[in-house]
């Protein structure tokens, strides 16, 4: 029997596996399985391990996803996180109040950042349970996207345009942290690292600016990460920079529901495996038939020849998406994802 890891490796090699791999990026749903609040759930590694294992059994996703929430990295820099009952936690106040603060900022040491230990423990325990059968996907924020939480999006955009020296210093700090954090997750047992880099998306900055900022930062960072990486634009657009992203050394690109998956596939063929692009926000109100139609559509556009993993387009399924929809997605992949995809006209 093909394991999830074999299936994923085959598609990453741009070959057709037994069926389309499905990455269901359920994070908060584990809390529901355990009957815990989202805040309680993320307070202990054991909860997340148990939640991830139950979700794996329920949906037979082809990965485990020990991602807690983005603002955990802000906590490592001394910031805090705000929890709500029915959705993902958000970053509290920025830690960089004035751009001058960057001159004094230092990268936190992962070995001393207690808040990150829970993630490493989670990864280690998951690895002990599944070994090499199911890929465990670690997560980092890209050095270029983290500053939105560190200083606020408005001030960050101003920094990029107006203060190149401070911007470079901030990148150096964040790159040092990101590399250490990614490598710690790999050492704990993660199979690959998902590198969340939505600020690089053309939704957020123009391509010419990306080539001078986000791209060189990604190149420097990915080179020092000791394992395979997937770049995720968190549902930002990327069609205009597919080749530029491939040049950073990443193997996978997480793409947006706002762009045509067939065009993305043409641009990425044999360069990058595509990950996506089901619309997670819309998903909360899909019927089973709609879920099936969306899965079929995505596989028809991007499944041929491998190089494709079906997932939501953001890298996190919203709390509001009901089990029925996720199960309908699962069933539809079993029905329509078997290779060869002879049903496609």
């Amino acid at each position: 029997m093909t394991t999830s890891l074999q299936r994923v490796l085959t598609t990453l090699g741009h070959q057709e596996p037994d069926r389309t791999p499905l990455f269901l990026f359920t994070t908060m749903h584990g809390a529901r399985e355990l009957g815990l609040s989202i805040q309680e759930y993320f307070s202990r590694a054991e909860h997340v391990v148990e939640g991830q294992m139950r979700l794996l059994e329920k949906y037979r996703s082809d990965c485990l996803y020990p991602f807690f929430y983005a603002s955990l990295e802000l906590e490592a820099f001394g910031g805090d996180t705000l929890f709500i009952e029915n959705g993902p936690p958000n970053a509290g106040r920025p830690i960089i109040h004035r751009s001058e603060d960057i001159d004094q900022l230092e990268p936190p040491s992962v070995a001393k950042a207690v808040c990150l230990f829970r993630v490493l423990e989670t990864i280690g325990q998951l690895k002990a349970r599944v070994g090499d059968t199911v890929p465990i996907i670690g997560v980092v924020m890209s050095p270029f996207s983290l500053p939105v939480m560190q200083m606020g999006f408005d001030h960050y955009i101003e920094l990029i345009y107006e203060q190149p020296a401070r911007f470079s210093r901030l990148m150096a700090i964040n790159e040092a942290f990101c590399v250490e954090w990614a490598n710690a997750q790999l050492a704990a047992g993660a199979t690959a690292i998902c590198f969340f880099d939505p600020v690089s998306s053309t939704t957020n900055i123009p391509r010419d600016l990306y080539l001078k900022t986000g791209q060189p930062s990604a190149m420097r960072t990915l080179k020092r990460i000791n394992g395979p990486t997937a770049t995720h634009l968190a549902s930002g657009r990327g069609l205009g920079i597919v080749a530029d992203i491939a040049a950073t050394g990443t193997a996978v690109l997480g793409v947006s529901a706002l762009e045509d998956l067939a065009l993305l596939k043409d641009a990425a063929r044999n360069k990058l495996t595509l990950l996506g692009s089901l619309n997670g926000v819309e998903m909360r109100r899909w019927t089973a038939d709609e879920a099936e139609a969306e899965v079929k559509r995505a596989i028809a556009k991007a499944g041929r020849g491998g190089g494709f993993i079906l997932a939501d387009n953001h890298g996190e399924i919203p709390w509001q998406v009901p089990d029925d929809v996720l199960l309908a997605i699962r069933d539809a992949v079993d029905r329509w994802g078997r290779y060869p995809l002879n049903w496609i006209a």
Partner: protein
Amino acid sequence: MSELCEALEALDRPRIEALFQRALATDGPLQVIERLIVPSLKQVGDGWHDGRVALSQVYMSSRICEDMIRRVLPARAPGHGGQARMAIVVLNDYHMLGKRIVYSVLRASGFDLFDYERMDVAEIVDRAEADRLDILLVSVLMLPSALKVPELRSALEARGVHVRIAVGGAPFLFDTNLWREVGADAVGYSASDAVGIVQQWMEEAK
């Protein structure tokens, strides 16, 4: 106008200023806003929604325009001279950039409005009542915040505050039925859509 759009997308401040001054030499500030600034910002905003223009350009260009307009048309009290009494707010979540851009675009388009920053439902109801609002613009980034709009609507109704609500922000871009589902009166897919919505509502109120 297309010249100004190009300069705005390139964030070429000297050129933007020069085009603005040239227009002011022949027309009054209100005409320049109406004929030049509003259509140019609309083109930039539509470009973002179509994926041709990036957010960083939208943000920086809206600020440049807001600055220029402030110099020739200082801010006045919302509701002056027959304008609708309106406010903008971030409902429940902590992401202020969308609101900031919409505010700048409306100011650069000659409108005055209250800036409520971030509030929860109860705070908004109090302020909306005290300020006798006609129009409330709501910006959110997180889905749970978007799903709070029905609660906001019924709390306003319960207090007898009858305002028209326009919503915007990422969740509404990804689910184009969501604004109706949550009971908003209009949705904007880019910051400059706020101008059209407000203009239309003011027309209808006449």
